[in-house]
């Protein structure tokens, strides 16, 4: 409806030109000056995310696939949705196969388009694991950019979301993460900040977790 | 000075004379508060001038949407404050109207510059006592428990927050118990009280309950609109709490 388009833009232009507006300078110093040193960053992320019921699992580069397996086994998790084409996914499938999967969760690849996978995704998956691009100290948030190998619903539909966080991929603020990495030069289909499990306070301001999305968020810190 | 409370007012030198703008509510309903305000200033060695031509800042009409009428009344005040002295006002609301809204009200008018000049000299009474005169009071009254109601416009238009309580705390025998919701509007709002009497009644009802909970014998305030509303409701509800203007309260406590 280009008629409305032109009418709206014409009216806006006339309105603005009759009374131009000079905005004050945007001073980002308040964001630029928010800094924490290395150790503080991770501490703060943990503290803030734990305050909204996020769980943490500490592990190492060498051990994380086994530690995740042991963790899920202890939780009684039946299966784990993963992205087989990622480096992390490849390690999961080879290392879990080598160690034997008996009694542990089954690995389920997100290999098909959601149209043919939807029923299983909504009804048969306990947990999903994704990588992250890092985390933000200011707000206690994970940065997640879904990809064809790690689709968007992996971090949303399963009841538990496990997120791999490299202990050295930490930022002070959201603003720092996006400006330093020049996000504006090319945004992905979907970029997310995730700061806890799904929650609501819509019933008499009483917090309840797991309203639509994951009931549990487990951050796997890889050192 | 800014209404969003982000900046505070720069200091000025202690003047030899000040004007007193009494306000129309004080004039009709609380003249003793006005007199007390002038006497507090005089007691600090300042000469006080009360121009007899003054009437009202124009706020009632301004807030009702009758700006032309408000302008007419505001303009009539300009002639009476010719000296370059501070204008002290025993009301945060009227002071706010003059210092914050007059520049808008006079915008584009031939006397805009003059109105701005007058507006820039306006001080709320307690702010003036604390910041400019740096008063020190000696309490002469018997022990009493009181509470403080903060006027919306004193706080949010004049940036007066701690000054009145600082003055009250200088009084050794006065126990100041703060309200749970000290900063919440009492529900006066000028014509709001008669336009929406039921909401206003509910608001002042909450305020009265808050006051009663403190166990105070008096509620002190710096604005006669709030006082008329709150003490009217206290009296209407037969509550044994007295509403009193801060100028009058300070005067009573310090001059015996």
């Amino acid at each position, binding site marked *: 409806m280009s008629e*409305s388009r032109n009418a709206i833009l014409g*009216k806006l232009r006339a309105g*603005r030109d009759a*009374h131009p*507006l000079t905005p*004050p300078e*945007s*001073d980002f110093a*308040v964001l630029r000056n928010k800094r924490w040193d290395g150790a503080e960053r991770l501490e703060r992320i943990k503290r*803030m995310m734990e305050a909204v019921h996020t769980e943490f699992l500490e592990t190492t580069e060498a051990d994380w696939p086994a530690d995740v397996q042991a963790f899920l086994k202890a939780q009684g998790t039946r299966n784990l949705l993963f992205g087989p084409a990622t480096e992390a996914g490849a390690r999961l499938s080879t290392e879990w196969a080598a160690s034997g999967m008996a009694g542990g969760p089954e690995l389920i690849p997100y290999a098909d388009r959601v149209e043919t996978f939807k029923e299983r995704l909504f009804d048969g998956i306990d947990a999903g694991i994704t990588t992250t691009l890092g985390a933000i100290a200011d*707000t*206690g948030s994970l940065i997640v950019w879904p*990809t*064809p190998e790690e*689709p968007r*619903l992996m971090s949303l539909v399963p009841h538990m979301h496990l997120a791999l966080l490299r202990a050295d991929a930490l930022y002070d603020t*959201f603003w720092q993460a*996006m400006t330093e990495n020049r996000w*504006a030069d090319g*945004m992905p*289909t979907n970029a*997310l900040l995730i*700061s806890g499990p799904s*929650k*609501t*306070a*819509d*019933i*008499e*301001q009483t917090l309840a977790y797991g*309203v*639509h999305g994951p009931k549990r968020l487990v951050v796997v810190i890889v050192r | 000075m800014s209404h969003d*409370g*982000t900046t505070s007012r720069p200091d000025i030198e202690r003047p030899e004379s000040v004007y007193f703008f009494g306000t129309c509510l004080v004039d*009709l*309903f609380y*003249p*003793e508060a006005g007199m007390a305000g002038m006497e507090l200033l005089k007691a600090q060695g300042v000469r*006080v001038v*009360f*121009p*007899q031509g003054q*009437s009202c800042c124009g706020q009632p009409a301004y807030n*009702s949407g009758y700006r032309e*009428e408000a302008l*007419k*009344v505001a303009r009539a005040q300009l002639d009476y404050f010719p000296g370059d002295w501070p204008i002290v006002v025993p009301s945060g609301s009227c002071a706010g109207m003059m210092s914050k809204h007059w520049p808008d009200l006079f915008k584009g008018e031939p006397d805009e510059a003059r109105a701005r000049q007058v507006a820039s000299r306006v001080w709320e009474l307690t702010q003036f006592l604390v910041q400019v005169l740096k008063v020190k009071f000696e309490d002469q009254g018997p022990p009493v428990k009181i509470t403080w109601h903060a006027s919306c*416009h004193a706080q*949010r238009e004049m940036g007066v927050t701690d000054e009145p309580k600082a003055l009250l705390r200088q009084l050794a025998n006065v126990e100041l118990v703060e309200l749970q919701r000290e*900063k*919440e509007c009492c*529900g006066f709002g000028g014509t*709001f009280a008669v336009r*929406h*009497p*039921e*909401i*206003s009644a509910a608001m002042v009802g909450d305020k009265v309950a808050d006051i009663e909970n403190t166990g105070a014998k008096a509620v002190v305030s710096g604005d006669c609109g709030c006082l008329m509303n709150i003490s009217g*409701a206290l009296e*209407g509800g037969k509550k044994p709490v007295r509403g009193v203007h801060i100028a009058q309260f300070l005067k009573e406590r310090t001059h015996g």
Partner: protein
Amino acid sequence: MGETSINFAKASSAALQDQQLRGNFRRAMDGLMSKRAVQFADTAEWNGVRTLGASVRLRALSKLPELLEKLEANCTKNGIQVHWASTTDEANAIVLSIMQRVNAKLVVKGKSMVSEEMHLNAFLEKHGIESLESDLGEYIVQLDEAMPSHIIMPAIHMNTKQIAHLFKQKIKEAEYTEDVAQLTDLARRVLRKKFATADVGISGVNMAVAETGTLCLVENEGNGRMSTTVPPVHIAVMGLEKVVEKLEDVPPVISLLTRSATAQPITTYVNMISSPRKEGEKDGPNEIHLVILDNGRSGIYADEELRNTLRCIRCGACMNHCPVYTKVGGHAYQAPYPGPIGSILMPQVEGLEKRGELPHACTMCNACVEICPVKIPIVEIMGRLRSEAVHPGDAVRGAGSHASKAEAMVWKGWSMTYASPLAYQFATALLAKLGNAAPASLPLLKEWTNVRAKPRFANRTLHALAREKGIPDV
């Protein structure tokens, strides 16, 4: 007052009688105010981020037409289809035509105030399409066949017991429970089925970034992500003021938004959408449509002062801090946007003839102005609209519709008296003598004395006392 005028006074009177409702709001607003204060306890940080946020919004408004064109160009480049609607009718028609093309029967909705403004649910139902709210609060309100009472917390007027009864009554598989976790879980089970089968997802937009063609949504529940990821078609509706210039403008605004709204440093999800599903991607909608709605906003924009209304980021903090809203609740306003922002926005969008009473639903206490994260001069605009309501003009629709000859005469008389020292002193001296004889049953005095003692005129005015005490006049 016009015939179609919405009666705020009458609706608020009913709300004031409802002690349950008053209790619900008082508790909720007290909690929200104190939690917000903790978020902004660092005054220097608050001033810095607030000034930055206001500058971001003002900069966006200063280039609004250009930024909307840029947003359109970048969205289009990214594969998002952009539509423009002058009116809510037109926006509804656009949404419906998309639905009909894909033969949609079920729509899941994330929270969107613009869709409330459009009365989109009712419109779609009329055309045989089930439109299901999926934000828990919106879902509750929809089950209750009511309107949201707060823009952030739609069901804030209800307590757990009321919601428990509602669920038992309206949801087939529901067992009666007052356990919030169980009630939430029930909604999860019901709505997950709907997400999986919906044909279209509808969302609002918290911010659209012109620089990158990105739609930003913030939420805690995940229903917004569900609605914008699972169904094959996503339609986003936004008011035309929601654009910002640069991607780096997003962080400060989000920080102000979530802290002001619900006192959270950030919401659980910040969802930034820049394109439909690309080649090789396994999920996400195949089509995204962005509907940009004017509905009177371009008119608001034309006025230098009223334009500031469009800075709003819809955090709802003005409601939480409004002593009038706290007393009467959101429904009394009978508007998608209640509270202070609604009281200035609704009259400008729908006209003063219908909404002219709302700018008077305010004591001008400035509590909203003090906490507005983008420094909207709400009370000044309130005053301006009061003036517009009684003076014919062309800045706002319905200007002059509330003009009353009697009221105008009163103010004229008042100004003549108060602008003349002689007349003023004569009148006040007269009131000092005779004023107290006025019966409490007089109009205005009657409203006042319902719960208050009659104000007493002093025997002598301050003018008289000052003369007697020899206070100099010059």
